[in-house]
Each structure stands twice: as structure tokens, then as C-alpha cells.
């Protein structure tokens, strides 16, 4: 979890936390002060319209109806007040929502940009789903609060004005009318606080039911194979019962509060009618004033309710902001040095040196220690080792996804920590084990590293990667949309796109994290030949998960327990190293992965198996 794993580094200590998170919001709101000010201003105009109507009604009754005068003028004034109220009801809503959506949008963009800038170590520890919910549901909570800010200000103005008018008209009646109203506010706040956990409980039960449905559908062959339909049906009944139970709990909460919120103002109106009625009979106030009182009491109900809600929203927004701030407060660990050096140019570049590297994802559980490898420019090395031996970690250090704890990693003689991060990553191209394609065209995916690459360059890269032929057969050729919502390619096709992507990047050093593991065995050789094309004349580090991939590298480095135990050609090692033969045998136990079977998840999973291997 994001929260749990980043103690210390990511967040400032507790006391500052409270202020920090609000400052985050206040800074954003300051940028929008014009919009917010307009929102408050139109809100005040709305208030004036709202307050005028009962006053005008009162005058119409007292001066018109009761005294037999003309009411047409008063009716016209009321209609005019109606126009004011209508226009400003609309504009007050518009500005409130506009500003709150803007805050939400800006905060989301900032969050996304920050997430992108965070070091991979952070991403390996956090789950996509959690970062997603920071950027969606948490920001929604913030938005719901921000929208209430200008609305609440005009509501407060309305309440204040009405209270003043009531006291000016008749202090005694004002007290009678207002007594039940604070309870409206209190009830609304209690309601919001009580219903929130009830709603969350319903959602939690719905999620549990979804889990049962998902596993039953995904595991239908097991269910059918054992005739276990009744077992799953019983589980589902339990979950359906739970949903019903917590939903009824929530309904009971509503039953407890909502009618009470209707009841309280009516009690106010009845009190006004009673006490006010006597005062009209006694000639203390007019009938019109009594009617106006009634209207005013009714007018206060909604603002009081929403203020109650605003308080509850603020509490939720505070919790959400705290979670958002935890992400934004995490400082990226992999940064450019203050005075970055430059990579030497020349004809023969691409030398890679790992010198006495020690590294562990947990500081005291080293994955690599005493790791030494030198790769001459233009040559290729296959890293071979059992699962958890640290193969993939080597690639991550070279890309500077992580920094070494001891020793150094250098490119053409320069320590990667002395280079600008963008220079390192420009110099090292990588084809990952699990290929991620973006929701974009085929050419955009290939030209990922250089978005302005010409179509010729893209096409040539695709040809070299052996991808051109199948691309031209796609519905829109190079313009076919890929990704989750686009055309879905086979594992092998995706790999070839990834290889083409690396070709366009034209890096000094290429890292191939065994691109064949997700591929139908019959297609393996095609990928392999594409890989060989890319590697020609380029320094290449091959992370081999399969026996067949080893053959394409010039030399082999055998990794065991975090260090290099042997180095040589495939045949040399085969002849001399018992451990090498064992590792190869273990790899070969899986001759074929079913096409379409889920590929191994990324580094997070690899890491857990790595540490498991260490124990």
C-alpha cells in the first residue's frame, strides 16, 4: 500500500500534515479567486431575490388584498424578483460547479504529472488501483466540497439576512420561528455522517458479491467439473442477503433522518401560525407579516440542510486531500545531478560496466552483491539465472530505475548517476517482458521514443522487427488504433511492435527482457530473428527466461545468488558448469506457455519472488 510503505520519506511528520493538505487546496483556490469571487457575488444577488419575494408577498397582502387596493403592481414586482432569483439561481450554480470542476481538473493533472515523475521504486510498491482511486474518487470528494464553498457563502448570507428581517419584523415571533431550525442543520449533519458509512457498507457488500460472481464465472470449468453449482449458489445467497441487510440498514438511517428534516421546519411553521396568529388578532403584526414569516421559515430549510451537508463533505474532503497529499508529498528519488556530465561521442560507444554492485529492494536483503560485468561496445551478453537470481534487477539499475547501494553502473565510462536521467534513458533502450501498448495508432506506438519520426523511419523499424507484414494486414494498417479499447494483437505481434519501438529509439545500449516468453512457441523463432536484427552491432543485454534466447547472444553470464558465477560462451558453460545445466533444465520444464495465457506481471511480482528466493 502507498500509505504503509512510504513511511518517513514521503510525508512530513504528523502535525504539519493537517495544514499541508489544506494548503494544497488553498493554493489552488487562490488561482481561481476571480471565478470564486464572481460565484460569491452572483450568490449574493440570488440572496437578494430570494429574500425579496416574501417581503413583496407581505406587502401585496397587507397593502393590496387586505386594504382592497390594487395588487397588480405587487404581482409584477414579485414576478421581477422571480426573474432575478431564476437568473441567479442558474448563475450561482454554474460558477460553483465551474470552479469546482476546474480545481478537480487541475489537481488531477498535477497528480498525474507527479505520479509520472515518481521513481520506479515507488511504483513497484504501490498498486495501480490505489493511485487510480487517488485520482478519481478522492478528487471527486474534493470537488464535492469545493462546489459547496461559494454556495455555502451565499446560503449563509441568506440565513443572516432572513434572521435580521425576522427580528426587525417581530423579535418574539422570530425566536419562535427559529428555534427548531438549528436542529435541521444538526440533523442534516448527523444524517450525512451516519449515511456515509452505511453507503460504504453497501458498496463493500456489493464488491464481495462481485468477487463471488467473478470467481464463479472465471472458474466455471471447476464449478461444472465438480457439480459445485450449489456451493457457489449458497455463497451468492449469503452475499445477496448481506447486501439486502446493509441496504435495509441504510434505509433505516434514511427513515430516521429524512422525515425528521421535513418535520422540524413544519413545527416552526405551526409555531409561527399559533403565536403569530394571536399577535395578528392582538394587532401586533399584520397578516401579511405572518404569511411572510411562514415563507421565510420555509426558505431557510434548504440552506440549513446544505450547511449540514457541507460540514460532512468537508470531513470527507479532508480525508481525501490527505491521501492525495501523501502522493504529491512523495519526493521523486531518481533525480538529475546538479551538474550533469555528458556521454562521450565517437564511433565505438555503448560500453556498459557494473562494478562491484550491491543492491536490494529492501536495504538489508541484497538481490545483487559483488556484481561485476563489463560489456564491450557492440557485443551482446545474455544474463542467465534461476528465478529470483536478480536478472531483471540488472536491467533496472542500468536504466536507473533504481540506484545502486554500493559500487557503480557506468555507460561509456560515466557513472549513470552523473548523467541527466533523460540522457541515460535516451542511451538505453528496452524491450520489456510484458509489452504495454498505448491507446494510439500503430505508428504512434512504434514512434513512441521520437513522436515526430517520419513514416519512413517507422516503417523501416517495423520491417526490421518483422512487424510490417502483419501491420499492413490490420484494418487501418499503421493507423489502426491499439490498446485496451483498440485492436488487440497477439503476444508475438505486441512483442514485435515493442522491438520496432526500440529500433526507432536507436539507443546505444539495448536491453531485451526476454521478449519471447509470452509468445506461442511456433512464433518464437520469428521474434528471435527480429531480436537478432536489432542487436546487430549494438551493445545488448539479454535477460534470458528461455533456453532458446540464450543462443542469440555472443556470451553468457551466469548469475546465482546475486553475483556472477561464470562467464563464457553457451557451449563453454554447458561443458563446464553444473549450475548452468541445472538452470537451463529448470527453464525447459515449461516448453510452451498457452497462447493468450496471462503474462508474468511486472517487476512487483518479480520482486516478491526475488526476495522469496533469498530466504
Amino acid at each position, binding site marked *: 500500500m502507498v500509505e504503509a510503505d512510504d513511511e518517513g520519506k514521503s510525508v512530513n511528520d504528523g502535525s504539519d500534515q493537517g495544514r499541508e493538505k489544506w494548503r494544497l487546496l488553498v493554493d489552488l483556490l487562490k488561482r481561481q479567486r476571480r471565478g470564486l469571487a464572481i460565484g460569491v457575488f452572483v450568490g449574493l444577488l440570488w440572496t437578494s431575490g430570494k429574500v425579496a419575494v416574501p417581503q413583496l408577498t407581505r406587502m*401585496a397582502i397587507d397593502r393590496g388584498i387586505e386594504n382592497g387596493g390594487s395588487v397588480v403592481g405587487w404581482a409584477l414586482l414579485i414576478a421581477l424578483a422571480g426573474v432575478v432569483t431564476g437568473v441567479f439561481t442558474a448563475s450561482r450554480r454554474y460558477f460553483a460547479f465551474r470552479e469546482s470542476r476546474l480545481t478537480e481538473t487541475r489537481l488531477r493533472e498535477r497528480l498525474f504529472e507527479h505520479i509520472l515523475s515518481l521513481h520506479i521504486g515507488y511504483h513497484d510498491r504501490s498498486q495501480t488501483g490505489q493511485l*487510480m482511486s487517488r485520482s478519481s474518487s478522492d478528487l471527486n470528494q474534493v470537488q464535492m466540497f469545493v462546489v459547496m464553498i461559494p454556495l455555502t457563502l451565499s446560503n449563509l448570507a441568506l440565513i443572516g439576512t432572513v434572521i435580521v428581517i425576522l427580528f426587525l419584523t417581530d423579535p418574539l415571533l422570530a425566536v419562535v420561528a427559529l428555534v427548531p431550525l438549528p436542529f435541521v442543520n444538526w440533523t442534516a449533519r448527523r444524517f450525512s455522517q451516519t449515511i456515509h458509512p452505511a453507503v460504504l457498507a453497501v458498496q463493500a457488500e456489493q464488491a464481495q458479491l462481485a468477487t463471488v460472481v467473478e470467481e464463479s464465472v472465471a472458474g466455471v470449468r471447476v464449478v461444472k467439473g465438480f457439480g459445485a453449482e450449489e456451493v457457489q449458489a449458497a455463497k451468492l445467497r449469503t452475499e445477496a442477503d448481506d447486501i439486502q441487510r446493509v441496504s435495509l440498514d441504510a434505509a433505516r438511517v434514511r427513515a430516521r433522518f429524512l422525515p425528521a428534516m421535513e418535520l422540524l421546519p413544519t413545527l416552526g411553521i405551526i409555531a409561527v401560525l399559533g403565536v403569530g396568529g394571536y399577535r395578528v388578532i392582538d394587532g401586533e403584526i399584520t397578516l401579511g407579516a405572518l404569511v411572510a414569516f411562514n415563507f421565510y421559515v*420555509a426558505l431557510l430549510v434548504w440552506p440549513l440542510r446544505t450547511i449540514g451537508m457541507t460540514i460532512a463533505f468537508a470531513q470527507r474532503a479532508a480525508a481525501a486531500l490527505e491521501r492525495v497529499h501523501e502522493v504529491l508529498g512523495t519526493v521523486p528519488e531518481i533525480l538529475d545531478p546538479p551538474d550533469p556530465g555528458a556521454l562521450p561521442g565517437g564511433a565505438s560507444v555503448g560500453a556498459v560496466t557494473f562494478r562491484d554492485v550491491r543492491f536490494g529492494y529492501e536495504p538489508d536483503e541484497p538481490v545483487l552483491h559483488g556484481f561485476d560485468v563489463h560489456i564491450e561496445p557492440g557485443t551482446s551478453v545474455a544474463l542467465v539465472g534461476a528465478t529470483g537470481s536478480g536478472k531483471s534487477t540488472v536491467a533496472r539499475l542500468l536504466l536507473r530505475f533504481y540506484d545502486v547501494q554500493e559500487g557503480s553502473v557506468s555507460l561509456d565510462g560515466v557513472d549513470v548517476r552523473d548523467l541527466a536521467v533523460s540522457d541515460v534513458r535516451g542511451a538505453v533502450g528496452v524491450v520489456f517482458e510484458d509489452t504495454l501498448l498505448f491507446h494510439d495508432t500503430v505508428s504512434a506506438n512504434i514512434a513512441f521514443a521520437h513522436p515526430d519520426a517520419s513514416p519512413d523511419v517507422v516503417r523501416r523499424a517495423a520491417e526490421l522487427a518483422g512487424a510490417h507484414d502483419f501491420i499492413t494486414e490490420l484494418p487501418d494498417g499503421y493507423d489502426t488504433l491499439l490498446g485496451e479499447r483498440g485492436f488487440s494483437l497477439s503476444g508475438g505481434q505486441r512483442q514485435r511492435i515493442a522491438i520496432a519501438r526500440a529500433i526507432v529509439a536507436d539507443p546505444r545500449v539495448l536491453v531485451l527482457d526476454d521478449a519471447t516468453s509470452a509468445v506461442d512457441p511456433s512464433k518464437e523463432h520469428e521474434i528471435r530473428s527480429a531480436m537478432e536484427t536489432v542487436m546487430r552491432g549494438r551493445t545488448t543485454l539479454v535477460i534470458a527466461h528461455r533456453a532458446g534466447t540464450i543462443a542469440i547472444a555472443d556470451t553468457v553470464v551466469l548469475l546465482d545468488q546475486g553475483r556472477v558465477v561464470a562467464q563464457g560462451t553457451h557451449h563453454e558453460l554447458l561443458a563446464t558448469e553444473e549450475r548452468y545445466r541445472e538452470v537451463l533444465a529448470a527453464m525447459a520444464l515449461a516448453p510452451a506457455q498457452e497462447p493468450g495465457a496471462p503474462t508474468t506481471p511486472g517487476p512487483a511480482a518479480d520482486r516478491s519472488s526475488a526476495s522469496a528466493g533469498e530466504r
Partner: protein
Amino acid sequence: MRLGHAVTDDERLDRSEAVHVLRRAGRIARPFRRPALAAVGFIGMSISATLLGPVIVRHGIDSGITAGNRRELNLAIVAYLVVTVIAYVGSRQQYVYVNRAGEGFLRALRIRLFGHIQRQPVAFHDRNKAGVLVSRMTSDIESMSELVQWGLLQFVQATLLISLSLGVLLVLSWQLTLVALLVLPIIVVASIKFQRASNAAYLDVRERVGQNLSTLQEGISGVRVIQAYGREPEQRRRFRTSSRALYDSHLHSVKVSTWYFGLVEFCGVLATALAIGAGGWLVARGDVTVGTVVAVVLLLASLFEPVQQLSQLYNTLQSATASLHKLFGILDTEPEIDERPGAVDLPADGSLEVDAVTFTYVGGARPALENVSITVAPGERLALVGATGAGKSTLAKLMARLYDPDQGAVRYGGVDLRDATFASLRRRIVVVPQEGFLFGGTVADNLRVARPGATDADVRRALTDIGALDHFDSFPDGLDTEVRERGSRLSAGERQLVSLARAALVDPDVLVLDEATSNLDPGTEAEVERALERLMEGRTVIVVAHRLSTVRRADRVAVVDLVDGSGRIVELGDHDQLVALGGRYAMLEDAWRRTQSTSTGV
């Protein structure tokens, strides 16, 4: 703002479909008619009481205040208090009963739909994407729960409120009512327009939210590639574009609702103005009293809100009927594999006989298997080999009646599997799938999937039978260890052990195995191998084999291959015979041996 629901044109049902769907939902809701009727009763009670309020106020003003009669005023106040309490009680109960009926209905729908999905054969699950089925059971039903929680209540409330308050208004003063209702056409027209515009706006928001979320997700899950290629600036731009599009869409939907709410507010005040304008004139003529004017003005307030609610409910109702329509679509699918009336138990033992079977997947152009016959003797071990897609897994599934053949028959001990009871079928023939698929719950729960009533002793015996008891006993919580979702706490090998132990718990005569191809670490691999070997002892075994070692241990090998695009058994015999034959199997075996030699260096 509760724009809440929206339907696309594709989803929207025409009138007769909608009526049909609602009528059918009514039948499912039948058991809940008591709470539903009670709810309607309570709603009626609270609304009638609420509407009496202004009438009482009129009485208080006219007979009490204006006449200076304190007794009448007191009477009015007491009456008002009484109806308020009645309204409160009614409105409290209405929430409880509406939800009792509604949630009961949803529960019944969930259980019924799930039961139906479970009764469907494997072929149905091949045709329907898992995600779609899950969303039928979750989001489609949940989209109805808002209708149940709010919609039904509001619908009944709004309808009753409009009709009752119109009635009361007309009784109070038909002249005033007619004048005030001049604004009603404006509200009705605006509501219809708003309903359409908000539907479109909400659909757009929903679409953009989806796009924005997937751009977000792409950025987060693709962060390694993005950083590796230093593409952060492009990704920021991409995200900003999608984020601004979402913002614009939000703004549009706010505009749509904003003018509507403003207009409704204006109409409310305008109606007041009209009532007062006309009221003054009527009072002067002596046609109505002051109290009547006040009562009309108060009642008008409760007339416009329900109209507004109904226009929004229309979207909710449409999206709920669209969801119901989809659900009924599933309920209408008759299970193709069902137990026949008069089904018999399979005999205790016998040979498994595939007799001239032809089978085509739904939507398949050619039969997956054509005219395949093979008999497996009791205790025999048969390996099915062949290329991916040749039909070996299909054949295995037919032998366990996960599918029914289109032609021919599969018999066990002479009984056609289609004539067998499900109970005896699952008792005699057990399929062990390729990957150990685990459900949430404990290790023991996962074994009991195979035999719900099994005692702890049975469960332990099953694990002992395959030699895996010690392995699971060594867990801190032993067999009560929670395996978490999909068994994520266990290793792949442990999941397979559980899967094998399930089969051991059933203790079947015939075992149909789909051999795992995934990577296990060598230690567990050996343990799984041993467990498998012990499980197979003394049983008839059909194994879809991916490994040479497995094939070599089989008594006979059947090579399944495509002939004219359909699967057939092209070679049948023991390992040595087939190698000697020099055909398809010999080639396969050669390829197998070579991959293994590059890796072992032999």
C-alpha cells in the same frame, strides 16, 4: 445535481418492449406485493397529511385570525400538529417498506440470475465474455438499486402529490388554480427538453470519464515504458487533452442543468405572483378569502418539485428497464445441458466409450471434432496429444460432458452421459483443469467445493491420499489458511495440489486431466508430479498431455490432428508402436526430444 442515469439510443427500449419488461419484473416482484402495498399506503398517508397543512392554514387564517376567533385558531394549530405527526410517521414507514420490497426484489433477481448463469453449460460461458456476465450481475443490478431506493418512492410520491394537490387546489379555488397553472406548460416543456439534453450530456460525461480514466490508467501502468523512453512530456500532454475534454463535458452538463433549475425557480415565483395578482382581484370581488390565497400559494410550492423529479426519474426508469431487458435476455437462455427427466445413475464401473462423435462449437464454421470414436478400458491411461487447436481438449471435455456431442454419443458403462444424473456423473468422472483454480476462502473450503458435505476427516484423507497433507499442515493456520482471492496467497504449485486434492476427495473412477504447462519451480514441480501419480493410481485416466514424460507413462496415445479443418484421431497406439509407425507422433516426439536436449545439453 443528480443527473444520475442516462441511456444510449441503442439501449432505449420502445414502448411495447418496456411494458413487457416491466410486466415481467412485476411477476418477479410478486412475492413482495405486501410490503409494496404497505409502502404505497404509507406514501399516500404522508402526502395526504402534508397536503392538509395548507388547508388547515386557510382555516386558521379565515376562521381564526381574520375573524378574531382564538378557539378556531387553536383548533387549527392542534389539527396541523396532528397531521404533521401523521405525515412524519407515514414518511418514516415509507422508506422502510419501499426498501423492503425493492431490496427483496433485487435479492430475488440476483439469486435467480446467478442460479441461471450457473446452470448454463460451459458452451454458454465460451460464448459470453466473463466481464459481461459479471457486469450483468453487478452494475446492471446496481443501476436498478437507485431506482429501488429513490426512484420508486419518488415516482409514487410525485404522482400522488401532483394529482392530490391539483385536486385540493381545484377544491380551494378553481379560478386561482387555473391562473397559477398558466406556468405549468412552461415547466412541462422545459422538463421534457431538459430530460433529453441531460441524458445526452450525461452520456457524454460518462464517455469522457471513461476515456480519462483509461488514459490515467495507461499512464500509471505504463510508467516503466514511459520513463524508460523519457516520454513524460507527451504523456502529460495526452492526459491534459483528455482531462480538458472531460472538463468541457462537465461544464456542458452543468449548463444544461443550470438553465433548467433557474427556469423552474422562476416559474415557481411567477406562479406565486399570478396567484397573488389574481387573488387580490378575487378577494376584492369577494369570490375567495385571504386564507385561500395563502393556502394556494403554499400548495403551489409542492406542485412544481414533483414535476421536476418526474423528468429526472424518466432517465432512471429508462436505464433501469434497459438493464432489466439485458438481464431477461440471460434468463431467456435455456440451458442446453440439463438433466433429463428419468435420468439414471451411472454404473459403478465400466469403459468410457466415445462413439462416432461430431461436435461443432457455436459459431464455428467447421466441426471441432468429426466422427471421433475411441474406447477407454477401465483402469487404462490414455494420453491425448496434438497441436494447439487440433481438438484434444475438446475431446477431453466431451468425455466429461462439459459439452454434449452434436452427433454420436459418449457412454460410460453403456449409459449415455446425457441420460445420466448430474450427481452420478460428477461422482464418476472428474475433470482436473490445467491451472489450479481457487476460490476465496480457506484451503479446506476449496477442497469442499468438490464435495460440500465432506467432514474434516474426509478433507484430510483426500490430502493424505495425494501426499500433500504435510505441506498444508505446515502452514501456520493449517487447512484453515485463507487463500485470498483466486488463491493468490498460494504458489502455483500449491494451487495445483489443492486442485488435485479436490479430485481425490470425490474419489472418481475416471479422471480427465488437462496437463499444466505453466512454469513451476523444480521443488514444487516434483511434489505435484508425485501427487498426480498417486491420484491416477487405479483409475481410468484421460490426459491432455504437453510433456513427453507424461505421454510415455500412458498405456495408449491418441494423436488428434486437423483433417480438412476438423479434429480427428489420426494415430492410436502405445508409445513404441507410434514411434515405429513414423507418422505424426514420431515427428512430435522428435521435436520434443530436441527441445529438451538443447536445454539439458545431452
